[in-house]
């Protein structure tokens, strides 16, 4: 765990503490109360240790599965077991002496603290601490022994790349934070931890680089988080939806990633990251529209290749958004637009197709969505079967049966594949949704409808904001200096000035953030 973690409990928790009953002197009574509060759950382990005089009992309490067994064993043997006590029999005669001995021993483990009320005792237990209680004392030693079973750091599964680091976040907050800290070895990487969720008490960490992140933005972010009042936070998606500015927009205004290098890169651009315990997906705000079409690998590959690939991605966005719509519009409204040989070809394919073009599109699109949805939820071996059935059987057979025309299959598959070219899955989902809307409008109004919908979409996109940053920046509002890294990825040595809209403070990379700290009101 990084040592810099700032413990700042919410106000809600402080009020709990006041009502909390103190720890009793009677050890047995204490243990009983703990047991009853946890509903006699069998994973609560209590280990009693007798003292030399058979009076001053002590007990170690922990929850099985949340703790690192090795550390607990090690600690208990040293601090409490009879053997180790016998060696120093004279010095641990009284319970207080024994308490401070045990506390001293805890140093070898790591973090330790003293708790005096039952609520914080329970809270500690539930976050993986081991509690040492003594007969006759109203305080307990809480030793940080959290551990237990967790997934190892593995390769990213949703944001795969060819070149670049292969590690990805896990479900453990501590591991995730350390992965980022390993990348940014700078004391200005500041981490704040809060607890959100009345029932789940999920740890979340706000991470930013002090001096790079905009202070006002950070304040706003903290405020939004503190306004969350829900029972549970099971994934960062909960928080994303709760703090989004435009909750009814189809577009995501908060970015998420499971790649530590992506988080590091965004932090260095002055953005704020939010780590949520229990999920590998880290939120990043403020997010702009174009972020969703960039990948970290753009910066790892050469600039020319990356630029080309970026252009390709934006092309794919247009195809996946407008592809079927333009096809429907051209075939139903603007037949004169199609070159004659192609029109004859299309017309001959459509001979005998019993449906209007728009029904044909919807038929195939819906089929495609079904195959995709089924394929995602299936275990991977069956998933392949689904795609084979979907692709071969449905596609081929539908054409041969004359239900759909072959050109339509091409259009829909191209659209489908294009939608996978968007690196951010949540953006691809939004586009997928809007595609249907645009197809409907184009079936009703042709290219004119596409233009109108396009205008509305652009107007909507320009109205969005993420933590106060215009969503379409730096294109709208236009910032000439920031164009180097939007549609193209210019060579790294061109990018000498930081993004303006996200970062208002220190604009020249290489100048230490620390220098600017002295004068935070600059700019």
């Amino acid at each position, binding site marked *: 765990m990084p040592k810099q973690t700032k413990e700042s409990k919410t106000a809600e928790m402080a009020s709990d503490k006041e009502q909390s009953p103190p720890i009793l002197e009677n050890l047995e009574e204490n243990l009983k109360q703990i047991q009853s509060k946890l509903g006699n759950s069998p994973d609560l382990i209590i280990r009693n240790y007798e003292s030399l005089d058979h009076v001053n009992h002590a007990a170690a309490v922990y929850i099985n599965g949340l703790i690192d067994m090795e550390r607990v064993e090690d600690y208990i043997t040293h601090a409490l077991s009879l053997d180790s006590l016998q060696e120093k029999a004279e010095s641990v005669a009284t319970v207080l002496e024994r308490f401070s001995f045990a506390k001293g021993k805890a140093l070898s483990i790591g973090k330790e603290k003293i708790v005096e009320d039952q609520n914080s005792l329970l809270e500690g237990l539930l976050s993986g601490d081991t509690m040492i209680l003594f007969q006759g004392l109203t305080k307990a030693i809480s030793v940080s022994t959290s551990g237990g079973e967790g997934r190892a750091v593995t390769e990213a599964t949703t944001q795969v790349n060819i070149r670049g680091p292969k590690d990805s976040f896990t479900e453990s907050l501590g591991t995730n934070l350390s992965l980022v800290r390993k990348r940014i070895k700078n004391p200005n990487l500041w981490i704040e931890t809060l607890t959100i969720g009345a029932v789940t008490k999920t740890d979340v960490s706000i991470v930013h680089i002090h001096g790079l992140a905009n202070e006002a933005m950070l304040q706003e972010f903290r405020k939004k988080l503190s306004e969350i009042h829900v029972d549970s936070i099971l994934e960062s998606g909960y928080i994303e939806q709760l703090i989004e500015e435009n909750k*009814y927009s189809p577009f995501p205004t908060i970015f998420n990633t499971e790649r530590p290098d992506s988080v590091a890169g965004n932090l260095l651009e002055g953005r704020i990251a939010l780590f949520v315990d229990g999920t590998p997906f880290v939120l990043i705000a403020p997010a702009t529209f174009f972020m969703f079409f960039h990948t970290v690998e753009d910066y790892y590959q050469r600039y020319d290749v990356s630029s080309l690939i970026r252009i390709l991605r934006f092309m794919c966005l247009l195809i996946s958004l407008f592809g079927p719509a333009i096809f429907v519009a051209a*075939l139903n409204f603007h*037949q004169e637009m199609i070159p*004659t040989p192609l029109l004859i070809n299309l017309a*001959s394919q*459509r001979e005998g197709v019993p449906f209007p073009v728009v029904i044909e599109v919807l038929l195939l699109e819906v089929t495609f969505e079904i195959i995709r949805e089924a394929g995602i939820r299936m275990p991977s071996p069956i998933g392949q079967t689904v795609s084979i059935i979907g692709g071969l059987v449905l596609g081929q057979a539908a054409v041969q049966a004359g239900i759909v025309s072959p050109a339509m299959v091409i259009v829909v598959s191209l659209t489908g594949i294009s939608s996978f070219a968007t690196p951010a899955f949540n953006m691809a989902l939004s586009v997928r949704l809007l595609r249907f809307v645009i197809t409907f409008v184009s079936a009703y109004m042709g290219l*004119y409808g596409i233009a109108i919908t396009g205008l509305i979409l652009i107007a909507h996109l320009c109205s969005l904001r993420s933590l106060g940053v215009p969503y379409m920046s730096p294109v709208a509002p236009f910032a000439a200096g920031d164009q180097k890294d939007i549609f193209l990825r210019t060579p790294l040595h061109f990018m000498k000035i930081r993004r303006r809209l996200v970062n208002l403070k220190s604009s020249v990379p290489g100048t230490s953030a620390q220098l600017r700290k002295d004068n935070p009101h600059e700019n």
Partner: protein
Amino acid sequence: MRTKLIGLLTLYLGVSVLLTGCWNSRELNDLAIVSGIGMDKLDDEDGYRVTFQIINPTSSAPSTGASSSQPPVMVISSTDRTIFGALRKASRRMTRQLFFAHTQLMIVGEPLARSGINNLFDIFERSHELRLNTTVLIAKNSDAASVLKLLTALETQPSTGLVKKTQNTSRVWGENRRIGVFEVINGITGEGDFTINGIQIIGSAEEGKKKSSLEQTEAPAGSIMSGLGVFKNGKLISWLNGPESRGTQWLLDKLEETSVNIDSLDRNKDISVNVFYSKTSVKVDLQEGKPVFHIHIREEGSINEAGSFVDLSKEEELEKLKKELAEQTASEVKMALKAAQEKRSDIFNFGNELKRTHPELWKTVKKDWNSVFAEGELDLQVDAYIRGTGMRLKPYFPVEKRE
């Protein structure tokens, strides 16, 4: 904010419904794509017989669609005083609505052409479907309908085939040029007269309608581009053929590429020159009331074939050939001008040229330009260059064998 957005959205959608232009949705299966229109004169009454060549999609595309034994096009005719009336009347015989945005060809039968075509083209400018770049052809010695009924080998679509034929021969042979509706309208409205390409049926027109005619290596019927029809006051008066026709393209600066045979030392016309560049500049002025046409042609070519020995490595030999080429060109140009002057028909845009450069002089001759034109004199200068001799210099047959 949100109410504003919703308000705007409603406004946009409301406006969009009110402002829609050509937005009627038509399925492809409900359209009969017309590839060619034929116009013919009715024998005994006023009005036209309009023939539509309609693409039959089922048998037109090579794709996996249901292939049928039907021909790639079907042809129907209907008669009316107006073209639009005729096409609407055609609905009585058609299962689908005629669709004209892909009409590439308009053929006018010779009888109709002879009685005048000036008022045929209004619908092309007025309709949003018909295109102004539709190729116009005159069916020489026949009616337009029989040309539209012919099937073509290689090209599935006969109309596409005819358009391609026009383009192809314009590009490499140069007796014709692509003439579209727009150019015809310009010819009708401009000073002087104009020409339109002719197409002639060869073989049996009756056989050419049948699909079986395509199942032979030598089709029993076909069509051939044949010369230029000269239109005076919107009426076809004569045909220009062969060298006259090519000379016309030269004078109009429409020649792209052609092949000219020139004389060698001992035999006539046995050296073939591929003229791949030709530029004509025209100046017209009046001298003592007579027009003088200053024509300067600059052409470049390469020797592509030599039928008898000629030593192309020698400068003087090439010089001779250059002179020959220039003479040959000049003779064709003169033939074209002579033919036009005989008919008193200015098909070379000389009138327009004079009007443009000397408007005050034009006014003096405007009234009887046709007769003035017929007396015009030619001041022709041809600069011919031979830029290449192909992949060898001397022909393989030796000098001795010349005797």
